């Protein structure tokens, strides 16, 4: 059941193994209430997130994509998230050019201890996505099997 209520939407989250995945875990262990629309994919580092992953998610019908890594200066690999920041900023500015609402894509930093901050991020982002509603499907997405659609 979605936290916001109504139909659950599809949000894909790319979380770095060292900080944000831990942060999400902290939130879970602390039993913070969170919406359930997010599907988490664990990656070694936010620097691993190729803009390709995000584009593929949107093309496949994701309603929102969230990338979260270690805070700047705290990267487990020292500078992966600095590269990520440049790429993801470029991507965020590019998406609306082809008609994908930039609000559907968010990138942020959450540390392993910030369960509360994680809860807030997921809650706020899910709320925004629900306000925006399901992403407009690309014409051929409609012909894909139901399971593959958002």
């Amino acid at each position, binding site marked *: 059941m979605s936290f916001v209520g109504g139909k659950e939407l599809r949000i894909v989250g790319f979380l770095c193994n060292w900080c944000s995945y831990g942060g999400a875990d902290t939130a879970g262990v602390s039993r913070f209430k969170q919406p359930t629309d997010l599907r988490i994919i664990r990656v070694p580092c936010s620097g691993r997130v190729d803009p390709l992953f995000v584009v593929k998610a949107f093309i496949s019908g994701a309603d929102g994509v969230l990338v979260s890594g270690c805070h700047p200066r705290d990267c487990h690999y020292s500078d992966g998230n600095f590269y990520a920041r440049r790429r993801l900023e470029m991507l965020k500015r590019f998406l609306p050019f082809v008609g994908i609402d930039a609000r559907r894509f968010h990138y942020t930093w959450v540390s392993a201890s910030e369960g509360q901050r994680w809860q807030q991020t997921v809650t706020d982002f899910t709320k925004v996505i629900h306000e925006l509603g399901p992403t407009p499907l690309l014409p051929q997405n409609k012909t*894909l*099997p139901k*399971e*593959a659609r958002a």
Partner: protein
Amino acid sequence: MKKARYLKKQKEKEFIAALGAKARVYAPCLEDEAVLFKPAEPDSTICLSRPAVSSPKSVIYPQSETLFSFRFKKDAEDKRRTLVELDDTIEVPDTIIFGARPCDARGIAIIDRAFSKTDTPDPYYLARREKTTIVTLTCPEPSSGCFCTWVGCGPAETSNSDVMMTEVEDGYLMEALTEKGEALLESPILEDGTPYEAQAREAQKAAHERMVKEAGETDTTPVDPETFDSQAFWEKAAERCLGCGACTYLCPTCYCFNITDETVVDKGERIRSWDACMFHHFTLEASGHNPRAAKALRLKNRIGHKFLYYGEKYDGIIACSGCGRCIRGCPVSMEISTIASALKKNSGTVSGEQ
């Protein structure tokens, strides 16, 4: 029995709309500046004054199609086992290609042969082909790069079409060439065409003569084997080639394809899609070995297929209709006509061009 009818230009839209009531109609439509074969809609701008960018082959042989779908299912008796179900049903609507050019029609005839004159005919292509009627326009003017007469086609060539339409005063003379074509001309929108026949003959003759002046008579000189096997010839000819697929995908006669599987969760499809022999990937083997790794070898295969290999199988026919699309559409203006003509001469020159 030959049936000649007359279509007034101002009734063209009405006629196409009437055809559309019975079948899918594809016609050359203007999209921005590009002329493309698209389903004719009431608001389409039909453009017959210049050849379409790409050929109408996609109507019968789509860029991608589903060969069959599969579904995975748990075995009711043994839950550990997964069974597979296959389904190869396809929809085949009646279709009309309106405003093809003789080179387009010849292109389809070339694919017809490959897909039917074999002990394993292609049921997907043939099912669509059988339901397709081709209405061809006599080509009024040669375009840059056209060379149809040189390969044995021509701007008024009728042999591969169901209806031939020729521009005459204030309209078109529509002549049925087959039973399919006759059925299509059963329309109250059309008038008697007899008064226009002489005019049409004149226009066809003139079009043919113009084209011959431009591109020459049919050249039946065989490919010179020594030149064909010269590596230096192909290296020179392929020098500027970028290795993209524009030539093959725009070509009315190219039919090479790829087969790939796509799955989502418990079901998927086996897809057939156009492929291009100019791609490095085309012949790349899983081991990493590639028998046509160099673009010169790929060009040799492409030209060889059209001017040599196809003819070895099918009565010496050249698998090129001289439409010039690959020349006009190529980012570096590769010229199949000059390469082919250089191949026919054992002139000692290795240059692909004069």
